[in-house]
């Protein structure tokens, strides 16, 4: 990292156009985060086509703004109506809503915004410090190390998405298989093209992502309409008191640290970060029994963690070209659509993209603080718009956006097909993120595997004899086994408990 790079970043981030799109990104992100039923993955996928006319720097600034802006917005519904706007705000409902019931909704939202701002800003500094050396180190990586890293990303995401690990794994395998559709680039053999010329080039990730994340979710909401409870809480006193500060500063610090490091891990993400931060805070607190009754550190910790995690997730994305979540997978796909080659060389070949993004995040976090403190009541009023009115708007933008990527009706058909599949996946608990991530990583993973085996003349030993790839694969095995071991011990404990009764 050098000061020159940072200055370059600020010179780009503060141009009127980039400031405007950073503002639009964080504004749309806050709205998307505040609305239950549409998460940051869907928001980024649906709005990605809108960025096509922009430079890659401006586009990434806007997409990242949507991503971390959604973390701020998710708090509003969690606190006011006890419904998380997106999954990373689930923990905020526990104490945030209780605070609202006690007439302290303003303090909860204020502390969440301030905690998010502090966590967001500190984690941008950490991103700036961590990503460049990691990229420099990764330049020496060969195909086996890349293969191992991608396996790690997929395994952790499949095992940590919640619900059944087998289902996560099945979805990751389905995504990898869909990633093989098209003409094989090494031998020229068509695979799974079903005789359709449109599939020769490969299955585009965007129609699949929009179908699974956006249309599937919307169809689910048509099936099971969201009923937003009227807001009863009064919004006043947004600035925290001195006692609130005393109770929260430690939670913000710990939430930031946990969030950033969990965010960096491929597959973990903001939701797990907020769970861990809340659990940690409860453990270290002097009043653990009051958690869940409306304590302010129960809001500050998860909100700081989910913001820090969303920035942490950009470390593997920007330094290694490996996304760790559904949203960052869509952002990686965006980079390739702009003609950039994601990976460790991105920072040296296109420093403006990384440094422009980093600088814009400082500015974006200030914008979000301003938006979320005095304007929290305005965002809260968005919740008064019936969700059913938003359904046609989201579907309309999604359909047009998917068409515009390649001016292809075929892609619209693909989005609809995956929308239908996504609806049933949603009902039966099959996570969409591993499928989308695997679809994006699939071609890269296969290329790395085949190159590695060419290097080793067909032997798989190459993955285990090189220390870095062996270490990463061992970590992937641990990540895959972790939930299995955890559920084994939980079952043992339950049996022991039942026996003792």
């Amino acid at each position, binding site marked *: 990292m050098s000061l020159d790079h940072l200055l370059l970043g600020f010179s780009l981030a503060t141009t009127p156009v980039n400031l405007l799109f950073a503002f639009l990104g964080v504004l749309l992100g806050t709205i998307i985060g505040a609305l239950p039923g549409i998460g940051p993955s869907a928001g980024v996928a649906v709005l990605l086509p809108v960025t096509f*006319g922009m430079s890659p720097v401006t586009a990434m600034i806007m997409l990242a703004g949507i991503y971390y802006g959604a973390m701020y917005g998710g708090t509003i519904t969690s606190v006011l109506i006890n419904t998380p706007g997106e999954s990373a705000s689930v923990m905020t409902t526990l104490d945030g809503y209780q605070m609202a019931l006690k007439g302290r909704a303003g303090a909860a939202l204020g502390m969440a915004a301030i905690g998010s701002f502090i966590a967001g800003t500190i984690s941008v500094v950490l991103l700036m410090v961590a990503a460049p050396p990691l990229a420099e180190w990764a330049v020496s990586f060969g195909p086996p190390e890349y293969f191992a890293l991608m396996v790690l990303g997929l395994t952790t995401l499949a095992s940590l998405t919640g619900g059944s690990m087998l289902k996560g794994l*099945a979805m990751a*395998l389905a995504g990898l298989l869909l990633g093989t559709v098209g003409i094989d680039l090494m031998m020229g053999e068509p*695979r799974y093209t079903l005789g359709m010329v449109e599939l020769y080039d490969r299955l585009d990730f965007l129609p699949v992502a929009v179908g699974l994340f956006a249309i599937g979710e919307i169809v689910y909401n*048509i099936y099971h309409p969201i009923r937003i409870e009227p807001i009863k809480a009064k919004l006043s006193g947004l600035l925290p008191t001195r006692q609130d500060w005393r109770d929260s500063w430690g939670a913000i610090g710990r939430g930031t640290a946990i969030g950033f490091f969990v965010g960096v891990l491929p597959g973990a993400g903001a939701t797990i970060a907020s769970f861990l931060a809340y659990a940690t805070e409860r453990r270290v607190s002097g009043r653990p029994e009051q958690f869940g009754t409306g304590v302010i550190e129960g809001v500050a910790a998860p909100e700081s963690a989910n913001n820090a995690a969303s920035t942490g997730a950009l470390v593997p994305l920007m330094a290694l070209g490996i996304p760790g979540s559904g949203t960052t997978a869509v952002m990686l796909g965006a980079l390739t659509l702009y003609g950039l080659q994601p990976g460790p060389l991105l920072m040296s070949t296109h420093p403006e993209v990384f440094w422009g993004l980093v600088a814009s995040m400082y500015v974006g976090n200030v914008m979000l603080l301003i938006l979320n403190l005095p304007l929290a009541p305005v965002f809260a009023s968005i919740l008064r718009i019936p969700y*059913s009115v938003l359904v046609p*708007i989201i579907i*309309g933008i999604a359909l*047009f956006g998917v068409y515009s990527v390649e001016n292809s009706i075929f892609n619209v058909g693909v989005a609809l097909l995956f929308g239908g599949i996504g609806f049933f996946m949603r009902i039966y608990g099959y996570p969409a993120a591993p499928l989308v991530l695997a679809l994006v990583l699939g071609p890269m993973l296969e290329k790395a595997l085949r190159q590695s085996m060419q290097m080793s003349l067909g032997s798989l030993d190459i993955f285990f004899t090189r220390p870095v790839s062996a270490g990463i694969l061992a970590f992937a095995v641990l990540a895959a086994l972790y939930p299995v071991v955890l559920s084994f011990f939980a079952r043992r404990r339950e049996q022991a408990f039942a026996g003792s009764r």
Partner: protein
Amino acid sequence: MTRADMIGGLLLSAFFGAALWEASSFQYGTEFAPGPGFAPVWLSAIGLCVSLMIAVHGMRAMRSGEDSEQAAPALEVRGLVRVALTLLGLVAMVLLVKPLGLVASILLFLLYLTLVVQRHGVASAVGASVGTVVFVYVVFVYFLDVPVPTGPLGF
């Protein structure tokens, strides 16, 4: 794990089984390196095992009458009718693009969605549908210069 898991696992097994069948016709490998069939064969074979495991777990849970927290909720018929109407409308929209143009077919679909499926009032249905189409037309066609298939009305 439930009956739904058993059916889901079997459907996935069918998908991975078909993929494995198809993959067996691809060239598996060259002398020293994997060929185009290597990844599809292994991915579909592992996928088949995983989905069969899902189906077996579901079957076992059904037999033992185990009620798990992941049990899928019973499907609501009314909700499913709305979903079927929406998906049919989307398919019809795609088929109408050629004769009517993209903008007109999306507008018709949104009117159908809001009036027939969601049962909005006429004013809010027309407002949301026309407003959305005007917005996306301005963004994609006017600002981003995306060429869209046009119909007899010229848009």
